[in-house]
């Protein structure tokens, strides 16, 4: 299963068309990305830390928690998903185990970044880097730890804020020489920087478009078409879905709070997904099918009587 997903991702990256990979962070976001027809997803470490631990993305999420989350989410969708392995959770020796754990979890590749641990979100201030030679050794260890040679090592550099674009290009070239399959300059500051980076590094480049449909102070918002023209191989939208979910929840809470004293409840189907939306999304049809295939007739009769043999009560 995971091998064929790795193959799918490799095929997408070799297609010559930019791979659009929305960031996912939970079961809902992952399944929505698949349902809307995207061909690939990327797990956001920040979203995972924020949603799963309710903690900021500053290196509180541990290796095993990250792997465990990825295992569940990856197996809930059929499209390939890349994971975010932060700084690799230690030195190059740790990275060896990190790569194999993620590969076993069913993701198709991982990002490894060159920040000092504890790391922080690439669009925060106060970033620090490890020595470029040590970072290259981490990438080399990662590449040699792969069991499926198709597994993708995406070397992320956080160096633009610290060493400028030239420093970032120098680092990226070291990481490519160490065997990285793709390089990812986070918090890249302009279209011109993206062009220079792509032209200089000699490997597929992944760009983080952050919110995707909302600008932020760091990387400028570019359309997928423009990124493709610049030669970018993959664009991820790490913050889009968490920010959209929060907006949805914030609005609903506002309406809800403001009408708590009303004498009737507001009916606002425009603000919420319906129960059918949710049960379709979460794959209830599979549960219905498994029940009718495998439960004994008397158990089905006890559960459903003579009624429709389906989980979902439809209106």
């Amino acid at each position, binding site marked *: 299963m995971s091998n064929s997903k790795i193959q799918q991702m490799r095929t997408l990256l070799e297609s010559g068309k930019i791979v659009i990979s929305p960031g996912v962070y939970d079961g809902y976001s992952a399944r929505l990305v698949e349902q809307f027809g995207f061909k690939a997803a990327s797990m956001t470490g920040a979203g995972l830390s924020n949603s*799963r631990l309710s903690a*900021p993305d500053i290196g509180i999420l541990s290796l095993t928690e990250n792997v465990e989350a990825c295992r*569940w989410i990856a197996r809930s969708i059929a499209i390939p998903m890349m994971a975010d392995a932060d700084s690799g959770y230690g030195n190059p020796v740790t990275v060896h185990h990190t790569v194999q754990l993620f590969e076993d979890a069913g993701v198709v590749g991982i990002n490894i970044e060159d920040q000092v641990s504890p790391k922080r979100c690439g669009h925060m201030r106060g970033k620090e880097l490890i020595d470029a030679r040590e970072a290259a050794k981490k990438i080399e260890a990662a590449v040699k730890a792969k069991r499926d040679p198709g597994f993708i090592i995406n070397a992320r550099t956080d160096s633009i804020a610290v060493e400028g674009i030239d420093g970032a290009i120098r680092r990226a070239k070291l990481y490519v020489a160490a065997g990285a399959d793709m390089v990812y300059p986070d918090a890249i500051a302009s279209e011109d920087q993206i062009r220079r980076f792509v032209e200089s590094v000699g490997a597929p480049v992944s760009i983080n478009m952050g919110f995707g449909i909302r600008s932020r102070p760091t990387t400028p918002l570019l*359309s997928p078409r423009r990124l493709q023209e610049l030669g970018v191989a993959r664009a991820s939208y790490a913050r889009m879905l968490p920010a959209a979910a929060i907006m949805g*929840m914030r609005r609903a809470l506002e309406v*809800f709070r403001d009408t708590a004293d009303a004498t009737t409840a507001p009916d606002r189907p425009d603000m*919420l997904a319906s129960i059918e939306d*949710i049960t379709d999304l979460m794959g209830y049809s599979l549960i219905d099918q498994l029940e009718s295939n495998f439960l004994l007739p008397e158990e089905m009769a006890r559960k459903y009587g003579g009624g429709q043999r389906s989980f979902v009560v439809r209106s």
Partner: protein
Amino acid sequence: MIKAQRLRALIAAPEILAMPGVFDGFSARLTEASGFAAGFISGAGISEASLGWADVGVMGLEENLRVVRALAACCNVPLMADADTGYGNAVNVHFTVHGFETAGLAGVMIEDQVWPKRCGHMAGKDVISAEEGAQKIRAAAEARVDPDFIIMSRTDALATHGLDEVIRRLNLYAEAGADLLFADAVLTVDHIATLVRNVPKPLCVNMGFGIQQRATTPLLSARQLQDLGVAVVIYPRLLTAAAVRGMKNAIAAVQESLRSGEVVDRPDLLVPFEELNALVGMAELDRLEQRYLTEEQLRQKYRNAPAGAAG
């Protein structure tokens, strides 16, 4: 524990206690930031969000505890958890309650469905005997260390046995030590009024989506429920459905950008970066760095700029 004491007081207060369902760090922090006094952790929500699978008993005790522990740690308001059927028989319930209490929750809900359970508003429910259900509640009540820890007993018997059996069960569960009584998927206002009159302890009602009708329980406002004598109302589906709706809107906008080739800038659909950072506690992080990192560490991180991760 102080949170359990607060939750107990909120339930006992004459005003109805309204608890949005929370399921992840974002929803928990938003609920607290919006001024709600307590939150109810939706078992369906955490199964769907953290595991990516439907609420049909795939999630076990340990996965549930892992999520609720993190949510309880980030919130100052008391949270109640959903322990499904208690993950076994009455003996298992003893250990389950202990797990939730030590995880920092203010209370726990235990239901009388047959395992594997399912969402209370689905078809095909099946319940254990009332006597076994009562023994589970007795085990739960006696397992808690803090006598204020809330045991909420839920019965799913309406769909299978009707309202009289629901009343009989809730009375048995109250006698066994439940603090808060809950009949899921009630079908009419009359059911609610009848339940309030016929049970000996505070009643909790599930209003599902809160701001959207559904096929099972009719939608009433918190005020209407309070007038009926209901003590607690939970909205387990409000925030999961709002998050899914928000994400669908954003995905539709990004697909528009993919079709047209143009940048789409839709600040109406996403919260800004600053709000996201504030919500997840970046201010606290800055404060901790200032207090505990050495001068040299701060210099290395921020060079000559003023310190502060969020910029």
